[in-house]
């Protein structure tokens, strides 16, 4: 089980281009897990803003707008729930690693233009959602204690799986 968790964490970090050591994501508390999820949402929103600034492709732009719309909606729900529970999301090693990796990936994407950017953005979206979905589904959800937080993550996973399918189609269309 530990090896499995480590592999998933590594997959997530690799997708975000983070050369960080894999640690036990399963040991994170609910508020730390919430912080990771909020961070992951925000990272994808920033990728999307980059796509809107660089891409002229209508499919890529529509996808990016959907990422902003959906991840913002999820984050609003998460903040509302944390507020209701009277707790705050807690920063942790995984959130920090994700942010570092995302900064590097943004620099990499920002150096591209045209079709090269579109393909790289689409492939990153697919890999990123696959990795996050594995982490959320296999590690976070089984280890969340609070029922309402767990329920929100299950609803979020449903959204991100749809994004993954959407990204997969976008990658195909851009070949």
């Amino acid at each position, binding site marked *: 089980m530990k090896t499995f968790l480590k592999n998933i964490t590594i997959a997530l970090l690799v997708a975000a281009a983070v050369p960080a050591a894999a640690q036990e994501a399963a040991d994170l508390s609910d508020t730390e897990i919430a912080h990771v999820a909020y961070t992951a949402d925000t990272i994808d929103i920033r990728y999307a803003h980059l796509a809107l600034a660089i891409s002229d492709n209508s499919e890529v732009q529509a996808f990016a707008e959907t990422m902003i719309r959906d991840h913002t*909606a999820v984050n609003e729900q998460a903040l509302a729930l944390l507020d209701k529970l009277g707790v705050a999301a807690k920063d942790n090693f995984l959130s920090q690693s994700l942010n570092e990796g995302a900064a590097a990936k943004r620099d990499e994407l920002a150096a591209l233009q045209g079709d090269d950017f579109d393909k790289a953005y689409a492939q990153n979206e697919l890999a990123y959602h696959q990795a996050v979905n594995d982490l959320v589904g296999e590690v976070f959800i089984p280890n969340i204690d609070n029922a309402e937080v767990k329920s929100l993550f299950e609803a979020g996973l449903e959204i991100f799986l749809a994004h993954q399918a959407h990204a997969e189609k976008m990658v195909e269309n851009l070949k």
Partner: protein
Amino acid sequence: MRRAITRRSVLRALAATPAVLPFTLGRAAAHNGINHSPQTHEIAISGFAFDPDVLVAKPGDTVRWTNHDIAPHTATAVDGSWDTGPIAGGASAQITVNADMHLDYFCRFHPIMNGSLKLEELR
């Protein structure tokens, strides 16, 4: 001696049968296809799917989509001729069915979501 049939006598006779008149007129009108009582049909949006994904309705009916997901959705004609606009989580939007409308629709934000309406003709 025959009684003259006057406008007043006809009205008096009709007034004596209040329950029959609407029924009779209703049947006649329905037969002519002009007395369809518009209905409201509900479609739930849940788990990134329209439920039901195929809905039978008549011209004049209302179709209402209610979004149970967190993510906003739309119901948008495939040819773009009609669009509910964004439906936020927990919100609803509706359209009125007409005989000439395009029947296949999707979610503009999530193109993997598809649905269709089927027209039942007025009788």
